[in-house]
């Protein structure tokens, strides 16, 4: 019965991807397939935000504020602060996940146009993307369970990988000098 599972999984995945292919090939999706200038600008803005906000991000997960509150406030205020910080951390993480997914989406669409993509680079990027999602969901779980001040290593890793995606994308944008290509 155990040997049955991978086969059923492969079969189900084939059906799922087949359906996805139909959706992607439908006329509305085909229109979305071209990378627009607005999309590029938006993604570029999102990229800048990640760099500009790095100090603020550091602050969200830093225990300094918590230590300060713990010294001078009541238990109720501490609880409120922790609750707010947790919500903020989760919001930031969700936003980062969304931005990286958008950057990856644009990269893949650009790679679709590329005549000579590098297999090594593409596989490396895929591995990083998977790792990023595993790390970011682990962080999300940690945030829920233990709060924002006890996930230092995962935060470091998540931001590092998000930065990697931003860099890849930034270099791509710098090299795009054919506006006629984009619809």
């Amino acid at each position, binding site marked *: *019965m155990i040997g*049955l599972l991978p*086969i*059923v999984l*492969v*079969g*189900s*995945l*084939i*059906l799922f*991807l*087949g359906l*996805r*292919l*139909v959706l*992607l*090939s439908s006329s509305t999706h*085909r229109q979305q*397939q071209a990378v627009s200038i607005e999309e590029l600008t938006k993604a570029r803005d999102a990229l800048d935000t990640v760099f500009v906000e*790095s*100090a603020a*991000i*550091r602050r969200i*997960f*830093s*225990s*300094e504020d918590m230590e300060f509150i713990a010294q001078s406030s009541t238990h109720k205020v501490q609880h409120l602060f922790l609750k707010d910080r947790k919500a903020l951390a989760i919001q930031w993480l969700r936003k980062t996940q969304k931005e990286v997914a958008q950057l990856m989406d644009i990269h*893949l*669409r*650009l*790679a*679709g*146009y*590329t*005549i*000579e*993509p*590098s*297999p090594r*680079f*593409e596989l490396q990027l895929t591995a990083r993307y998977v790792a990023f999602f595993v790390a970011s969901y682990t962080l999300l779980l940690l945030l829920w369970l233990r709060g924002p001040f006890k996930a*230092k290593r995962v*935060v*470091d890793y998540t*931001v*590092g990988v998000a*930065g*990697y995606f*931003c*860099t*890849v994308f*930034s*270099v*791509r944008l710098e*090299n*795009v*000098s*054919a506006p006629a*290509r984009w619809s």
Partner: protein
Amino acid sequence: MLTNLIWWSGITLETAILLRGAQLGLLRKYPLFYSYIFCVFAKDLIVLLTYQFARNLYEPLYWPAELATIVASYAVIIEIFRWATRHKPGLRRLAQNLLLIVFGVTVAYAGSDFLHGRFASVSAAIVNLGRDLRYVEGGVLLVMLWLLVRYRISLGRNLVGLIVGYSFWVGLNLINLAFWFQPGNEFSVLLRSLAPATYLMTLAIWCVTLWAAHTDPEPPSESNIERDYELLLAKTQAIFARTSELLLRLTRIRP
């Protein structure tokens, strides 16, 4: 009665696909796919005639004929691969390497499964070989679909129809075969009875999507991003190393 109806419907649909393909010139465009359809058509016709007029030959003939069509169905994978990557030599190389790895791994898995099996008869061995070949096909098709979806490769309507029909058939066939070899499983009995209907649905998908010839999407024109790809990669790696270091320094949280 129902069996005959399904049989004849299948043969009618196969004939329609072949005739329409010849009419529209799709036969020349997708020769491997149409060879497969012809192969299935010939098999169905032979098996049906044997069933009607020489029932004693039906069983010894059925499984070898089924095995031949499974082998022939690999041609469809080659056809899809050929068309999907025709404007992308780089992606073709990437896909080729990945597919070869998956093919090797699944052949090794299926081969060991087949060699370790104790078969009561030649037909049982053929049945097992057919199942293992289908598993290999499933693995290869899965990787190919993943690549097509991941890189959002633009495909013509005819090719999408061909791929969707094929995925539907192979996907359901895999699930069906997996349960088929689980004796006493009631779900397998249900799936087995549905198998001919799913095959008819596959033929219907192909018939509808290949009824008219559609033009394929234009290949994108070459631009700086493609010409400078290698330069881009070198730059990316250099900037990545520098920025990662910078980012980690920036985001390091004091305990």
